[in-house]
């Protein structure tokens, strides 16, 4: 059997979606497992990331300009365009990417994938597609939630730490943030989260036998997903900048 490549896995997953559709039960399970169960860690991390962004920006603005009145606007723009979605995606890459790679890798070395094939079940349709779709949908939902949480945290930190009013934050937010920032953030969330299951499943499928092989597959999937997210972030930011 020829060695599986990343592109052939993506191709077979898409083909299986077009021919057999999606397994809704699997999809719902994966959505709950990948998105819902990651909610707490995402809420905690993005909240603190937003708070640190506001405080750091204020510190530097005061140092250079002796005035931090522009901090809420700038920070809100940074949060919506980059911070919320990138932090969320990197957290997911670490959490679910490792999980998917380990799960699929274990199935590979215990020959469960071969068993699926014997039962006439397409492993890409059964293993990759539900995870991919769950991550695409979950990515959008989590990007929205991460943005909402970040904005609220930023507003609270601005009010209580920077000693500026809530309405001042709102005014600054309106001045700097546009509705298309949210759309682009959602697209980024969807793309970043879509990459995670593909990379993780691929490393699971090519997992070498033994605990050592599973460990390597897990590590590789997390590292590759993180690099892919950062590179894709650059490319998407470059493309989206053409629309402003």
């Amino acid at each position, binding site marked *: 059997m020829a060695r599986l490549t990343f592109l052939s896995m993506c191709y077979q997953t898409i083909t299986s979606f077009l021919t057999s559709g999606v397994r809704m039960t699997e999809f719902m399970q994966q959505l*709950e497992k990948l998105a819902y169960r990651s*909610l707490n860690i995402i809420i905690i991390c993005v909240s603190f990331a937003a708070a640190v962004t506001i405080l750091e920006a204020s510190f530097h603005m005061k140092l250079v300009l002796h005035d931090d009145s*522009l901090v809420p606007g700038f920070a809100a723009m940074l949060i919506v365009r980059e911070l919320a979605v990138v932090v969320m995606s990197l957290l997911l890459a670490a959490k679910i990417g490792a999980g998917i790679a380990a799960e699929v890798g274990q199935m590979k070395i215990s020959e469960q994938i071969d068993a699926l094939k014997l039962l006439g079940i397409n492993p890409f349709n059964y293993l990759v597609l539900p995870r991919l779709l769950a991550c695409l949908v979950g990515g*959008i*939902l989590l990007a929205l*939630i991460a943005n*909402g949480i970040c904005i609220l945290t930023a507003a609270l930190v601005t009010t209580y730490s920077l000693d500026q009013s809530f309405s001042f934050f*709102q005014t600054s937010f309106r001045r700097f*943030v546009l509705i298309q920032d*949210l759309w682009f953030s959602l697209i980024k969330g969807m793309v970043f989260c879509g990459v995670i299951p593909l990379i993780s499943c691929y490393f699971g499928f090519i997992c070498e036998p033994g605990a050592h092989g599973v460990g390597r597959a897990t590590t590789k999937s997390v590292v590759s997903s993180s690099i892919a997210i950062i590179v894709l972030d650059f490319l998407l930011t470059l493309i989206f900048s053409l629309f402003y």
Partner: protein
Amino acid sequence: MNSQLKIAILFILAGLSVVVFVSFLGKFEILGQYKRMIIAYNFVGGLEEGSHVRLMGVKVGKVEKVEFKPGYKTSSGEEVNLHIHIKVAQSAWPVIREDSQYFINMAGIIGEKYLEISPGSQQAKSVQPGMVVRGVDPPRVDQLISQGYALAGKILSVVETNEGSVTDTIGSISDLVKSLNKVLETIDKVTTKREYSDLVSKFSQLSGEMTVLLRDANKGNIRDTLTTMRNLLKKLDKIEEKEIRDFLQEEGIKARVAL
């Protein structure tokens, strides 16, 4: 808790986040909360869609649209090519009158543009929603700079064409100032040297005595006159020869003094 419920929670949270985002962006608008009008300009200086509208410095609305209207003419016949569509909060609307003025101003350190409405007089009528009014075009900084350059060029050409006379005038003024300086220096020297000052005061005293002598001589009282002359000569003795010579030389008078 089953997985459907968990997914439902996920969607609800995402929906709430959208509400938070949209409310922060100020996109919620209850119907009828705003009234709209159009302001005509020929130059808006960077005012754009979403810019704030302020009335007496208070934020009351937003610019909704910037529209080109080629060939549009106001009631006075003036051609105005830009229409700014604005919405103003209903509560602020009655303050806007027909004689209100519409300025484009700049705020903040990043130079954010906004539209400022000055309240009209109470005698004037209120504006009607949808009405087109003429705004006050903001000054064009680029034009001012180019006019400044033109003015500087003209001044330069005037100076160049009258170079001789201008130079002569400046030379004359310089000479005048120099002469004045010399005079002032001389006066300063004379008034500060103690011996000259004494000399002047002694001559002054002498002159007074001489006046008395001449008056007495005229009267024929010769004895008194001689007494006066003796006194006068005694006083002259007190004036040193050197002081007199120095003074006369300083004043450019060559004289032989022998006392």
